């Protein structure tokens, strides 16, 4: 039974094939083309047909009248992807597929740097991520070297070269010891993107105050407040003076002004006075007249 069916199919195919071949058409396709480049598709056979080029990125449709080479001008297919080609006539269909690959030359960078502001002296505190695109905004998936460069006003430069994988590359950089505006540059060939990263002083370091008699009161004044790298902590940073006497406590918050904080208080003989800024403790003084 199975053999008889196979014979039947074989005979039918042998009878119909010459007609299909005579009326049908076929085409030869490129295996792949670069996005935006010109290409051609050659068709053979006779009879009117329609050529469809179908992809999620683009659709083309052409009438084909007779055996001919169809030329597609530069820019006809520019979205990278997998495309099906279908040559369809009244009684025949020929199909094939080909790829449109991104252009090799980078034309755009998507560069994101984080954060835009951070304290000095943080290891791997700054991150940068890059996606590399061609002129048609196709992600270039071929490995491409990306140069990351972080420079600060003092002239210190950190540089890394990272090769993209699937169009993406990323890096981490240290924030330097110097406060200031850093330039973070990602470069691929002639294309570059620049982001600005502000490095601000860290927490106060070695916070110290002195106490002086001032009339009937006591003047408390800090040294110039700096972070551990010697950067001046910005004015407005709150410094807290705390007086402890006989089991009771009173505090005064004072913003830094011209790099220092000072306050005049009425205190008791034998009181303990301490200074702090945020979580950073400074020195402690026992007030004796």
């Amino acid at each position, binding site marked *: 039974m199975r053999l008889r069916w196979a014979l039947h199919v074989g005979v039918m195919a042998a009878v119909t094939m010459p007609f299909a071949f005579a009326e049908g058409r076929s085409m030869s396709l490129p295996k*792949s083309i670069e996005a935006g480049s010109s290409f051609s598709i050659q068709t053979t056979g006779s009879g009117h047909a*329609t050529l*469809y080029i*179908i*992809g*999620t*990125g*683009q*659709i*083309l*449709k052409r009438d084909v009248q007779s055996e001919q080479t169809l030329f597609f001008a530069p820019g006809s297919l520019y*979205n*990278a*992807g*997998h*495309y*099906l080609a*279908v040559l*369809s006539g009244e009684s025949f*269909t020929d*199909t094939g*597929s080909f*790829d*449109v*690959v*991104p252009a090799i030359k980078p034309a755009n960078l998507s560069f*994101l740097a*984080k954060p835009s502001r951070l304290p000095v002296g943080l290891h*791997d505190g700054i*991150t*940068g*991520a890059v*996606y590399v695109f061609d002129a048609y*905004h*196709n*992600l270039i*998936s071929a490995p491409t070297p990306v140069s990351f460069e972080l420079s600060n006003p003092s002239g210190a430069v950190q540089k890394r070269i990272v090769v993209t*994988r*699937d*169009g*993406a590359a*990323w890096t*981490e950089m240290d924030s330097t010891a110097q406060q200031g505006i850093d330039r973070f540059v990602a470069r691929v060939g002639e294309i570059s993107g620049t982001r600005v990263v502000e490095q601000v002083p860290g927490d106060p370091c070695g916070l110290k105050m002195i106490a002086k008699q001032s009339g009937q009161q006591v003047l408390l004044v800090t040294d110039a407040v700096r972070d551990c790298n010697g950067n001046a902590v910005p004015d407005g940073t709150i410094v807290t003076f705390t007086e402890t006497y006989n089991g009771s406590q009173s505090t005064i918050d004072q913003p830094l002004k011209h790099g220092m904080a000072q306050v005049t208080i009425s205190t008791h003989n034998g009181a303990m006075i301490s200074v702090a800024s945020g979580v950073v403790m400074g020195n402690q003084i026992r007030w004796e007249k």
Partner: protein
Amino acid sequence: MFRPFLIICTLLTAAAASASAAAQATVRVETVNLQASRPLQEQTGRAVIRDYLQSWKILTAALEQNRADLLAPNFVGSAKDMLTATIQQQTELGISTRYQDRAHDLQIVFYSPDGLSIELTDKVEYDVQILDHGRVKTTQHAIARYVIVLTPAEVRWRVRVFQGAPR
């Protein structure tokens, strides 16, 4: 952490879009080649995969019905622009396309250090039916590799780059 894992599962996502997209695709996910400086939480990974697969449903419906307005919740940026242009070309030419995804072989390949983008590759197996003025011209089975970049939005990850790549 989103440990490397391998799943073969049947999509249970509701077919929000296409009435004809009744069949369900098999999905396989790997994270073995992930390049990232920050750990990818399992919940994040699952959300990204869920939203990406949902975007295929939307894509299918939009290309079948030639309705670019369907794309907005799931596509953004160049992916949305590209698909909108494709739908416009289809409309002008009297064409519509019915995509039916059969299988997805997904890899999460990049998670940006700021957590603001995730890149996937998908070896997707699908059928595509081409209709010219409502007349079916052909149905083809295809296997293609896609590179996808998603970025977070208010309630979901949206596809920002959706690009076929050589296998």
